[in-house]
């Protein structure tokens, strides 16, 4: 889309884009360029010399079993976060949509977890499940479940998933609710007159009409699980116990800063960049498609 009416100025537009372009060049393109360059370099342990090694870092990465473990973990993790998050928020949105005319107040109570920082969310859930003082851990113990996320890898992963979903539910909820409220009431009424019950109306009318929203949210939630959950992981488990919660974005940080393996960390960043480009592409395809709905 273009404007018909524009101004004619020689230097002014450059002056106006300059601040953003300069910041983007210095803090985006420069580091990204360095990252790509470093991903084909091998630096010796003292950081003095580095030599060009073609794609050795990538070959090394793809033959590294711990990288594969982390990739598999990330896929499981994002599947859990996206599916649980979407299911819970869809349920809440459908129910809230039914009662919303009577009680808009529910919305207020459901939107604010979005405002809690992921790192703080991690701390809160860590407190609830803390093996020595956590109230939920205590309850679980009462029914015979020993919950210790500090030593049990699967339980640690479960807790990270819970905290991540909790943090993201309000976002999904708002989009689902907006989607539900944009469905024409006449469609629902027509179906009701034809004798379709609430369940049938949901599956045959609301669910298909919600699918664009759902698909959009799926992409957003996968992106969130891949990249937005760093704070949850760092505050809750630091990637442990062992490697049980070291998702890919955490591994980039861990290998780069703690392990000082710049080449390997940069190669991992490049791989993640490819993932985002693919997901963004999928999302744009979807936005084009939305026009036809």
């Amino acid at each position: 889309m273009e404007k018909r009416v524009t101004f004619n100025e020689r230097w002014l537009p450059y002056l106006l884009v300059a601040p953003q372009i300069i910041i983007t060049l210095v803090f985006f393109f420069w580091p990204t360029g360095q990252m790509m360059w470093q991903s084909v370099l091998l630096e010796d342990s003292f950081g003095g010399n580095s030599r060009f090694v073609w794609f050795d870092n990538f070959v090394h990465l793809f033959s590294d079993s711990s990288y594969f473990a982390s990739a598999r973990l990330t896929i499981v993790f994002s599947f859990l976060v996206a599916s649980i998050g979407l299911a819970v928020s869809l349920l809440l949105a459908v129910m809230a949509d039914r009662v919303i005319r009577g009680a808009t107040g529910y919305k207020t109570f459901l939107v604010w977890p979005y405002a809690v920082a992921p790192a703080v969310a991690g701390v809160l859930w860590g407190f609830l499940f803390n093996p020595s003082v956590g109230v939920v851990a205590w309850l679980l113990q009462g029914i015979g479940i020993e919950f210790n996320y500090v030593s049990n890898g699967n339980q640690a992963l479960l807790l990270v998933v819970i905290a991540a979903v909790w943090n993201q539910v309000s976002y999904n909820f708002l989009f689902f609710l907006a989607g539900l409220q944009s469905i024409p009431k006449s469609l629902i009424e027509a179906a009701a007159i034809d004798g379709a019950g609430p369940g049938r109306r949901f599956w045959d009318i609301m669910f298909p009409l919600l699918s664009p929203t759902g698909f959009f949210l799926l992409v957003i939630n996968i992106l969130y699980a891949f990249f937005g959950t760093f704070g949850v992981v760092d505050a809750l488990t630091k990637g442990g116990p062992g490697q049980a919660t070291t998702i890919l974005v955490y591994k980039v940080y861990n290998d780069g800063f703690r392990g000082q393996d710049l080449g390997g960390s940069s190669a991992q960043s490049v791989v993640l960049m490819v993932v985002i480009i693919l997901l963004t592409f999928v999302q744009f395809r979807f936005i084009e498609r939305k026009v036809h709905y």
Partner: protein
Amino acid sequence: MVENRPFVTFLSHLVVILGVIIIAFPIWMTFVASTHDQATMLRSPVPLLPGKHLFENYRQILVEGFGRGFSGVPIWMTLMNSMIMALGVALGKIAISIISAFAIVYFRFPGRIYFFWAIFVTLMLPVEVRIVPTYGVVASLGMLDSYSGLIVPIIASATATFLFRQFFLSVPDELAEAARVDGASPMRFFWDILLPMSRTTIAALFVIQFIYGWNQYLWPLLITTKESFYTVVMAVSRQANAVDATPSWNLLMAMAMLAMLPPVAVVVFMQRLFVRGLVETEK
């Protein structure tokens, strides 16, 4: 209401109320923990109702900090840092994006399309992914331990620019035409017509970006080593990692409450703008 089914309506209320309770439970427990003394919070099971030490705990955490040789930085200072960072990020993003969107929409100039794409590709790589090299750049510019280092590297974002571009494209052409006919300069048109029209968009964006800036975690964690630059979110997380050594759950949870309060207040009191900002930045 399509039809009257008391049972289904009852069930809907029940599910939503249950959802609200589960979602609010962690916050409730945090609040409860922040109102007891240290000893109470170390005996499992911990109480489920508030105690009597609210003012004491919050006073200590705000004025003296965690104390006991640990990070002695008082929380009012980290709150101030977070506020500076959140305001800086929100206002900075809005300022640079609105003028670049103005240039891209209202001018034709050589290289315009390249600038547009340069801004667009920043969507491809969130800061968490390129954290190591970005840290290197900021360090070599001498911006560690400074407010500019906290703010400037994360204000370049495509979403805000796109939002303003979208909005400017929806502004009727007649306005710009009229301004031109009347001999108004482009900047005059920007200040007197476009900016006042963008008020709601700016406000909605401000709400979202304020929360984004306040909740930053990894970035401040890396580039601040001096306690005087700590933000409240990282202070909470640092303290949580050390809580087994000095188990003051009451103080830690008071800190967490203070870290959540400003962004949650923004969301609750500006809900309409928040929802609008959220939905529109994703278009």
